[in-house]
């Protein structure tokens, strides 16, 4: 290897630095372990959530029988004869989520179909980011919007609608979730191969028929997964309902009424900081646990759907 008559001899330099090779080996052995520790922090977060909720939830169920909690239709956490039935909160949560989905699913899906099947590239490039802005607006702003704008309009239309009610925050929550449904569904539809569209178009289909009979069915799992994720998001949404639905613990299915969701209950009870040790305080954790389990199941379902039913085309 006598090829370096003049100048530096890199080979020699590299050989001199053999030590670097050794430190490199140490680093190389250390880094994966270190990164693994970092990666497990996310697991510890989940674990932390579960344990935090679990301990206090157990305390709660020492004071309130399990069955009373899940079948009780009366929630009166304060005052003399406290009662801890979670059903009013469950119905509040479910109803607001159902309203939200009733808004978000059709509009989101139609937007997705429009963006993926009808819109030109240019239109799509303009509209999609605008939709995403909608998703980035803080929920407190939506709460304000629901309370000061949507509710008064609805009250003008629907007589008997209470000033705080579950309908208005439900609708606004739906609007907030539209981009999520639209964007995820659009992704699913765009990944349907063009050959499928061409096949349908060549049979004389209109674009609607292509979209409805071919693309949407083919992308169904992605679309459904987007719905489930959106539901999970609606269940966990807090500020909109807190501001616009009041804190009445109504057990009812009348959407014109004020109702409280699980999330809003947590806000109310913490109310700046919750006093430790009381049943009221523990009820916070029991409700949070219920909420957590709910959303966890939704998220797992969404992941299961999109993994299991990944379309084979």
């Amino acid at each position: 290897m006598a090829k370096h008559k003049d100048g530096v001899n890199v080979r020699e330099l590299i050989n001199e630095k053999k030590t670097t090779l050794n430190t490199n080996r140490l680093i190389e052995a250390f880094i994966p372990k270190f990164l693994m520790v970092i990666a497990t922090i996310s697991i510890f977060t989940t674990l932390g959530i579960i344990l935090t909720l679990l301990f206090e939830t157990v305390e709660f169920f020492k004071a309130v029988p399990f069955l009373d909690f899940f079948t009780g239709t009366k929630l009166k956490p304060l005052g003399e004869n406290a009662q801890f039935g979670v059903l009013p909160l469950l119905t509040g949560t479910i109803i607001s989520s159902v309203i939200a989905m009733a808004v978000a699913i059709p509009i989101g899906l139609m937007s997705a179909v429009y963006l993926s099947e009808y819109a030109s590239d240019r239109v799509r490039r303009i509209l999609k980011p605008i939709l995403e802005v909608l998703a980035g607006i803080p929920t407190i702003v939506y709460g304000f919007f629901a309370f000061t704008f949507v509710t008064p309009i609805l009250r003008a239309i629907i007589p008997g609608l209470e000033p705080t009610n579950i309908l208005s925050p439900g609708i606004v929550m739906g609007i907030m979730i539209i981009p999520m449904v639209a964007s995820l569904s659009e992704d699913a539809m765009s990944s349907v191969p063009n050959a499928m569209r061409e096949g349908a178009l060549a049979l004389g289909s209109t674009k609607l028929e292509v979209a409805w009979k071919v693309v949407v069915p083919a992308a169904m799992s992605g679309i459904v997964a987007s719905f489930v994720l959106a539901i999970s998001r609606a269940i966990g949404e807090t500020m909109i309902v807190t501001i616009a639905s009041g804190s009445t613990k109504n057990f009812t299915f009348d959407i014109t009424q004020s109702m409280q969701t699980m999330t809003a209950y947590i806000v109310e009870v913490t109310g700046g900081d919750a006093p430790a040790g009381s049943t009221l305080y523990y009820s916070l954790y029991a409700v949070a646990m219920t909420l957590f389990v709910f959303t966890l199941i939704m998220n797992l379902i969404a992941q299961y759907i999109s993994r299991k039913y990944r379309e084979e085309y």
Partner: protein
Amino acid sequence: MQIAVPERETKNNTSFTTNTPKDKKVVYDTKDLNLWYGENLALKNINLPIYENEVTAIIGPSGCGKSTYIKTLNRMVELVPSVKVSGDILYREKNILGKSYKVEELRTNVGMVFQKPNPFPKSIYDNIAYGPRIHGIRNKKILDEIVEKSLRGAAIWDEVKDRLKENAYGLSGGQQQRLCIARCLAIEPDVILMDEPTSALDPISTLKVEELVQELKKDYSIVIVTHNMQQAARISDRTAFFLNGEVVEYSETDKLFSNPSDKRTEDYITGRFG
């Protein structure tokens, strides 16, 4: 599709009127067709009559415009946003490039089979029934009949008759391609366009599809694009040789392969290029 006429090249060097059979009915007549992808002229002054109940083969090297031409015949080429066309294509005497022509109607009359089999991710039955259904046929009994007839027509009935409810993706590539042909037969088209329908298939499936094409020409007019000259020679009645977006030669298949009148055709069919 914009119908624009930018700097038309009218070197009318392709004229095949001499060898036009007088007794054959013309299904498609292409007149002075030019097609641009953006600025790029992909079809140059095409003039080409297509005859009823014949198999017309289109051959030529890669990129010469075969697919573009066949996709112009059912206006699928419009899916590319930058496409511009000038000239006329008369289908059954009506200009399909006219504004008022409904492309859905055209495509109902003109079926298409693609290079890669593209069944829908549905059951075999629903694949076939798709076309009739969008045209408003809902009657279960009629649909059953159509499905059977189409599958028989595509010579695949025996292979699938016991699994009509199964997903089409469970079929082999060759079966999928025949399924796509059956799907296209289900709406009883007038013309069938095929863009290299066998290039993704194994030799045995290819043979089956070739036989099928021979069979189908009794009832349909077929235009088939192929890379494979032997295939063109085997199954077609008439062959057009495309080169760089132009029709170099168009005549009876026998004549074109045995006695090409253009040097370039000869070079191509003897494998000198392409």
